[in-house]
């Protein structure tokens, strides 16, 4: 019985010797594999790092804005106390500038001087006067935003050594700016405007808030529609639908839909929501509808796999105690699948937040100054705003573009963190 010749392994030599001989080769293979994996991670981290470096280095200056201090005489001839809104505040600003440089008389020179401060300065002054009526008739000090070219100069984006003809600020303006700086009338402050205003033709007045609101309303519509519809579809298909040819066809087509380029959904939205149903253009409601169509397949697919992952033993437990099919799903399967479904929804929402192409087709690419206040106000969204700014020629919009990208990335990170957080909570509960 104990016949040593009856070995399972051919050849002679102890198993331990054979194993030891091969050991080095085995470990070398493992080391090589680890190095590959490590290198792959490092490369992707490196690119991510590069991306962040380039965005942040381009964009961080957008969070500051150059301001100019002016001594403005609130002339009672210009401001009518009974019609504050009708006054020509721009004129007061211009006079304040002229009072610093009385030697400027020629029309062209005057225009160059006026260009040092933003056209938004007049609105600042108007708001100031509206709040301080008693100051009318006196001279006040007010900080107003500088023009974007001055802003760029102060931030070092305009090279003084380039010849005047190729510079957006001429030598005379340079001298004025240097003079103002020497008098302490120029400073950089945190750019609140960027976070509170809508878009503008003037970079120093342009802000992200309009696009943030537009994105918010659009995503609300998307979420409110796609989560219940997608969730219900996933539950029906996974738990209740009979398994036959029809459900197979539906399943294949949902997978196909998930792969359809997003612009096609834009065209569909244009044809159905705008042309057929006559909904207004450029509004979050339609944007949300289009993005719902786009995210539904993702949510359904992720939802189904979350349902599929619920352990069969829980299902058996529920059924064997006499739960009906609906009770089984509602009491046992859904609570288990919910974190997965929520994660899928948030990933779908993040996708929707970054989507541009379908929204272009339904007119959300318009230049919109007003902050949208509802689902049917014309608006744009963050990625479209980025696209619009990236398309603008002014140097100042370059930094705005990067800053807007940072804001968008921040929102995406918050959403993904929420997904992780939600999953933790649900996992802990079980």
């Amino acid at each position, binding site marked *: 019985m104990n016949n040593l010749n009856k070995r399972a392994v051919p050849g002679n030599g102890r198993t331990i010797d054979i194993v030891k001989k091969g050991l080095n080769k085995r470990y070398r293979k493992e080391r090589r594999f680890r190095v590959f994996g490590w290198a792959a991670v490092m490369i992707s981290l490196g690119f991510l790092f590069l991306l962040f470096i380039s965005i942040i280095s381009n964009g961080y200056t957008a969070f500051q804005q150059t301001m100019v201090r002016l001594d403005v005489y609130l002339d009672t001839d210009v401001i009518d106390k009974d019609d504050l809104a009708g006054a020509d505040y721009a004129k007061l600003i211009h006079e304040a500038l002229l009072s610093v440089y009385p030697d400027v008389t020629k029309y062209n020179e005057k225009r160059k001087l006026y260009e040092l401060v933003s056209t938004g300065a007049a609105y600042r002054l108007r708001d100031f006067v509206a709040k301080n009526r008693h100051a009318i008739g006196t001279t006040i000090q007010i900080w107003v935003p500088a023009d974007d070219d001055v802003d760029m100069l102060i931030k070092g984006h305009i090279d003084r050594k380039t010849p005047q003809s190729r510079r957006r600020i001429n030598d005379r303006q340079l001298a004025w700016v240097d003079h103002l700086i020497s008098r302490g009338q120029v400073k950089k402050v945190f750019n609140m405007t960027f976070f509170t205003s809508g878009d503008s033709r003037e970079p120093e007045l342009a802000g992200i808030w309009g696009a943030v609101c537009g994105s918010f309303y659009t995503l609300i519509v998307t979420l409110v529609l796609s989560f219940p519809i997608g969730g219900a579809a996933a539950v029906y298909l996974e738990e209740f639908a009979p398994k036959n040819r029809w459900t197979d066809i539906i399943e294949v087509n949902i997978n196909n839909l998930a792969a359809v380029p997003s612009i096609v959904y834009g065209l569909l939205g244009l044809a159905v929501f705008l042309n057929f149903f006559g909904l207004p253009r450029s509004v979050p409601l339609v944007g949300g509808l289009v993005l719902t169509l786009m995210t539904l397949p993702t949510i359904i697919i992720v939802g189904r796999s979350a349902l599929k992952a619920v352990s069969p033993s829980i299902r*058996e437990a529920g059924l*064997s105690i006499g739960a*009906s099919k609906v009770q089984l799903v509602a009491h046992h399967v859904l609570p288990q699948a919910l974190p997965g479904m929520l994660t899928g929804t948030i990933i779908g929402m993040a996708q929707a937040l970054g989507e541009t192409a379908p929204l272009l087709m339904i007119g959300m690419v318009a230049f919109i100054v007003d902050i949208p206040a509802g689902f049917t106000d014309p608006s744009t969204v963050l990625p479209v705003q980025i696209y619009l700014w990236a398309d603008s020629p002014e140097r100042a919009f370059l930094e705005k573009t990067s800053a807007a990208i940072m804001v968008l990335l921040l929102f995406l990170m918050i959403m993904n963190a929420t997904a992780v957080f939600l999953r933790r909570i649900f996992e802990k509960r079980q």
Partner: protein
Amino acid sequence: MNQEQTTGHPHIRPGRSPLVERTERATVGQTTVEDPRISCKNVAVYYDAKKAISNINLDIGRNEVIAMIGPSGCGKSTFLRCLNRMNDTIEGCTVSGQIFMDGKNIYDSDVDVVPLRAQVGMVFQKPNPFPKSIYDNIAYGARIHGLVQNRDETDELVVGSLKRAGLWGEVKDRLKMSGTSLSGGQQQRLCIARAIAVNPEVILMDEPCSSLDPIATAIIEELIDELKQDYTIVIVTHSMQQASRISHRTAYFYQGDLVEVGSTDQVFLNPLHQLTEDYITGRFE
């Protein structure tokens, strides 16, 4: 060692009639009882085209513990799952034949599985408590069936069921804790408590101790011994010792056939079929 035991030689013990041949697959022994709780007629189960069990005729008496034994893959679980129609949930599984309970074939098209499963509880091989609190695990079945009307009744039911399952002392301070946080043996007793909380008439157990250590197994066996006063218990087990300790009758399955049924003592001490004897003497295959 296998060489010593070649097949084909019926072992004839002195003073006993010869055993039924291995090739003979008709059930031997006493398949019927008087006034059965469950009566199976010609039950066969197919998974798609593959036959799992066939030609099963078996009565299960009132308040009896009947053990199903046999090598793995012989169809014990399949048969057990016929009794509460859990096979319905498996795709491609078809059941033919009749299973009578209270004079009604449970496979008739007008039978609702929900009340059937409230009447025939089940405990699985792997403990599968709900990922809910211990309290809710037990209260769940009674709640969905409307067996309890208010909080007090539910409390009473939970405490009573846990006590019957011998788990009360161990969990009385942590009813709010998740059922999945208990040890394997405790989880299995929780599952038994959950099954008896619905007050079924029959309890099916599919190898309830196979994932437990000997101490937990002994506790569960004791529990089964106590439960048999009130319930009809059908238990699948791979342990012949367990079958002989707890059951009144034993049914031996082999390759999808019910080979022999009889009182547990008779089956283990005096098997009628060669295949049964092979199995209980460890000469199986």
